[in-house]
């Protein structure tokens, strides 16, 4: 059987997810040994429009992005959203809470009218997405696992439970017991509770867990000593395109 051809693409984002893949180093050689990479501009030169699997990073922020993404969708048998920007819109969606003239002025200053832009959105708002590897940045081991699952013809699995599960597995002291805020209660796991284990709190970069109880989460977060502005800021940080952000 011929090796499946894979290609990487990016829209609005920092290409940090592709960097995470490059960071797999020796492992990358083994994994990429099973495929033919036809396009991966962060790592290699050359490009072809003949591919089976498209890994797409970044969010859609301009009308013309849609045309390019639909073209990729047409060429690819499997389209995988790579990272928070592609999967859930991510921090690009922060601008959606500002008036268009405000963010255009902020970003482009006097040249604002030279550029086209519209509300940021995830790939799934424009095309059908077959699999997601969420996170900001992605966890390279999850990329490796999902790629292998696709190669083996299995349906790619990402955790469907909140970060709390991995946090408890790690044995961390709960941020809420320390009087702090945390989005682990509504965020999809898969990061091994990386931020909490390092002393921070969950920012929600992997998107909402399916069935997230947002009403309950708002009550839990709204505690004495926590400002509602801080809650709103945290909910908008990565989750701007979801029902969590108000």
């Amino acid at each position, binding site marked *: 059987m011929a090796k499946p051809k894979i290609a990487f693409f990016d829209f609005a984002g920092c290409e940090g997810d592709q960097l995470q893949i490059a960071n797999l180093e020796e492992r990358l050689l083994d994994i990429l040994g099973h495929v033919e990479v036809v396009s991966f501009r962060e790592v290699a030169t050359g490009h072809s429009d003949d591919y089976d699997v498209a890994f797409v990073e970044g969010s859609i922020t301009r009308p013309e992005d849609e045309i390019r993404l639909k073209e990729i969708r047409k060429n690819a048998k499997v389209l995988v959203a790579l990272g928070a920007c592609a999967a859930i819109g991510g921090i690009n969606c922060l601008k959606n809470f500002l008036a268009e003239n405000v963010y255009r002025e902020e970003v482009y200053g006097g040249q604002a009218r030279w550029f086209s832009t519209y509300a940021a959105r995830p790939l799934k708002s424009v095309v059908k997405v077959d699999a997601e590897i969420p996170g900001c940045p992605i966890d390279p081991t999850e990329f490796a696992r999902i790629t*292998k699952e696709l190669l083996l013809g299995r349906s790619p699995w990402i955790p*469907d439970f909140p970060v709390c*599960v991995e946090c*408890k597995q790690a044995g961390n002291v*709960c941020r809420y*017991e320390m009087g702090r805020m945390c989005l682990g209660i509504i965020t999809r796991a898969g990061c091994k509770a990386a931020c909490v284990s390092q002393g921070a709190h969950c920012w929600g970069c992997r998107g909402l867990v399916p069935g997230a*109880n947002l009403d309950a*989460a708002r*009550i*839990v977060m709204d505690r004495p000593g926590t400002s509602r502005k801080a809650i709103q800021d945290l909910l908008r940080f990565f989750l701007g395109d979801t029902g969590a952000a108000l």
Partner: protein
Amino acid sequence: MTTYTVYKEQLPGLFEKWSESYALYVPAKLREGFYDLVPWKRDLEIAWDFDVAYNSPKRFLFPPREALITFNRKTCEAEPVFEAPPQILFGVHPYDVKAINQLDQLLETGSPDQNYVRRRAATVVMGYEPLTVSPTAFWASVGAASAAHGYDLYWTKIGPAAFTVEVGSARGEELLSMCGPLVPSTAGDKEGARRAKARVLFKARHNGLRYNWEETPRLLSKSWDSPLWRRYSQMCLACGSCNLVCPTCYCFDIREEADDQLEEGVRYREWDGCMLESFAKVAGNHNFRPKAQDRYRHRYFRKGKYIYDKIGELGCVGCGRCVRACTAGIANPLKVFNELWEETAHEH
């Protein structure tokens, strides 16, 4: 069984000796108000007055993630994976010893869980009488204030620098005698231990069931349709924290991952929990407990009835960890059982 008196100054020598052939875990303060069993090292200050270990001891016997088999995709051959590092858990409160006893019964019966059984056999449990009681604990009212067995040694602090040590196994006695001859406890020392136990039991009575815990299964049989389940579960985040911190919850999920050559692979298990939305999802995407209410009720029935029906004890040892861990404030066996008792008051 024999009881010996051991002095604090003997401990560094014993710990040193034990740690040569065992991974030794002792109670220590993580931060103000938070304690846990942590790897022992010289000069580590032991938190003798810890109220509860933040993480339950089950993680030493049933780790959050554990390989079960390795397999070869080409030859279809598989090998079991067993890991059972020798370890000593020093400072396990009686309710946690009871929880371990319960896991022993449930995992060693029927088709024994080989991974668990081997880890358990390599684990020395040193029980320790608590000096303080966690604000959310209610172990004294669910029959978990003392453990009849399940420990190799049982330590009771009877003074600033003295302990009585009750021997629970030959292995325990051997470990205790590694640094010289042992002194059997005098009647006075044993009386000291009895008083220490009475003191902590008195403290533990601040919080408790309003009825005999043996009534719980009968109480639940009458409460299947209680409005309580819906009322509390509306706040449920389905985060599984109550399951994962529970010293007696042992459900797991099994997954596989191939290596990067796609030739070999490993099958492993990870902690799972019945409060998670997909826990009861089966083939065809059917979920037989799709609503938070169903899952929430299931957990209390599991703790208060189903386990009792199997082994004659509650599945809850009253450690109060789930009460602390639940950010939504709804995981609380004490409150739930007491409220159900009130609800059905006209019937008893």
